[in-house]
């Protein structure tokens, strides 16, 4: 009896370890695969040139990735500028001010928002955001545009990352001890002062973690952004320019025009680029988080 139980335990341990290795190795295999596929491009061009060249003309043999890197970064940045303040304030409202009834209504609603397929956000962007930018927002700044812009991509993307950001931030804020809030309140601070100076400060590592997760999602988001941000391979100089993020480049071109020399390899390189950006970003934020946590607990 005991023997079988011990054997079962050993089997469970070994098999879960193997399964863990499999899931980890997928990441490594993807990285290796992408690198391998990009090698033909590296043989003809130097990496630095690929990253800094801003002319994308595969027919002429010119592969500049800078427009796509800038497109990805700018759409993500706009999305963050919109969603960070909104999400931080919303989650503070939900945890510090809102009644239980409101909380019970809003939090499930946010989960619904998270479950909407990206293509619907894209359609919503095309139907509402793009025309709104074209006829209302851009004219305010004296710019004329089709509406398919970095700004449109940023707005759609920001709405898409709302749910994950808010729900993680609410969870983080819930962990702040009530006694800490009481300490600040009992000194005569208002709830807002307490939220600003004590709660947000204490919750900083968690809030940064929420933002990091949201950014990782934003970097990779493809279909909705592709539908609204114009897809012109030029470095955007303002939020009213069209942009061309890396995921959109891959989705639009993969499987087509493969007869052009090195095109296939160039798309693989752009995928590798995205992979490295997300990987490096997570690594850096992990380091920042460790520092912050160390400072608080040390």
């Amino acid at each position, binding site marked *: 009896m005991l023997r079988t139980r011990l054997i079962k335990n050993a089997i469970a341990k070994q098999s879960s370890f193997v399964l863990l290795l499999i899931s980890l190795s997928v990441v490594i295999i993807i990285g290796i695969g992408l690198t391998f596929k990009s090698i033909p491009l590296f043989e003809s061009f130097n990496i630095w040139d690929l990253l800094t060249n801003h002319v994308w003309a595969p027919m002429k043999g010119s592969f500049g990735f800078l427009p796509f890197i800038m497109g990805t970064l700018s759409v993500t940045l706009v999305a963050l500028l919109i969603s960070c303040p909104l999400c931080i304030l919303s989650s503070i409202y939900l945890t510090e001010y809102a009644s*239980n009834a409101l909380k019970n209504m809003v939090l499930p609603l946010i989960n619904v928002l998270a479950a909407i397929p990206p293509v619907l956000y894209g359609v919503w962007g095309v139907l509402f955001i793009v025309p709104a930018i074209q006829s209302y927002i851009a004219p305010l700044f004296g710019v004329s545009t089709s509406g398919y812009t970095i700004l449109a991509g940023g707005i759609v993307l920001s709405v898409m990352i709302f749910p994950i950001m808010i729900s993680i931030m609410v969870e983080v804020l819930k962990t702040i*001890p*009530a*006694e*800490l*809030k*009481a*300490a*600040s*309140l*009992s*000194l*005569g*601070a*208002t709830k807002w*002062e307490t939220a600003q*100076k*004590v709660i947000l*400060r*204490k919750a900083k590592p968690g809030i940064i973690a929420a933002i990091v997760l949201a950014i990782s999602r934003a970097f990779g988001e493809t279909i909705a952004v592709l539908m609204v941000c114009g897809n012109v391979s030029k470095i955007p100089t303002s939020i009213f320019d069209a942009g061309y993020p890396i995921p959109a480049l891959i989705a639009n071109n993969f499987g087509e025009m493969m007869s052009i020399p090195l095109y296939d390899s160039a798309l693989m390189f752009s995928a590798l680029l995205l992979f490295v950006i997300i990987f490096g970003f997570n690594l850096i934020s992990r380091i920042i988080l460790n520092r912050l946590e160390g*400072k*608080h*607990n*040390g």
Partner: protein
Amino acid sequence: MHAHPIIETEQTQVVSPAIQPHIQIQDLNIHIDGHHILKNINLSLPNNSITSIIGPSGCGKTTLLKTLNRLIDDTKGVQVSGSVFVNGEDIYAPNAEVTHIRKKMGLLSQKPFPLPMSIYDNIAYGPRIHGTRNKKELNAIVETQLKNVGLWEEVKDRLDQSATRLSIGQQQRLCLARGLAVKPEIILGDESTSALDPISTQTIENLLVELKKDYTIVLVTHILRQARRVSDYIIFVYGGEILEFGKTEEVLLNPKHEITRQYVKGFIS
């Protein structure tokens, strides 16, 4: 939540010591989610002395303390009726301003909760909120209050370090200094030494005894010996009611009520 006219009800069995009251509680009733937590509390707390609230776990001691600075407001499902007068001003009056009320009362909680900032900023936090911006003034407040709690010599060279690096006893003294920095009139302590080692406990107790010349102090404690050591008056709460209130020796040595006698002897806890 509205103010009742000031009348002494006949149910008031407790005779308050004949000292002019700083805090006066009238017909206070608290319900939380339909449970009657505090029942018909009438009480006058004497100035410049330490009053300990004792009683078995769950009797409503901490709730009573929280009603004094309206931290009870943040409890979900709470209903308060009756009045609490601080210097003759009803803090449950509709126009009462809660931040102003809380500023008058320093709170020392069960475990120290230093704010997530430096030692200096912990003390300066309250004064800054209430409008002190002058660096010199703030420096003076920080130094005075840290000296007040005997922490100055220990921390004067690392005021800019995180307060969480202090020992737990030092943190509790820091929290006391933080409370004193907003110039309260009353100090509320909620089992303030329960997380501390004996030496830190003694330090805090001595501080409180010293401070009572300037402040009215109300402590919740479950340690009878502590109540005996530090307090001038004792309130015995049982099942949400005040069974006994009087001078420390009277309550501990000569309780009027049988339940108090049993509690004091350690038969109920």
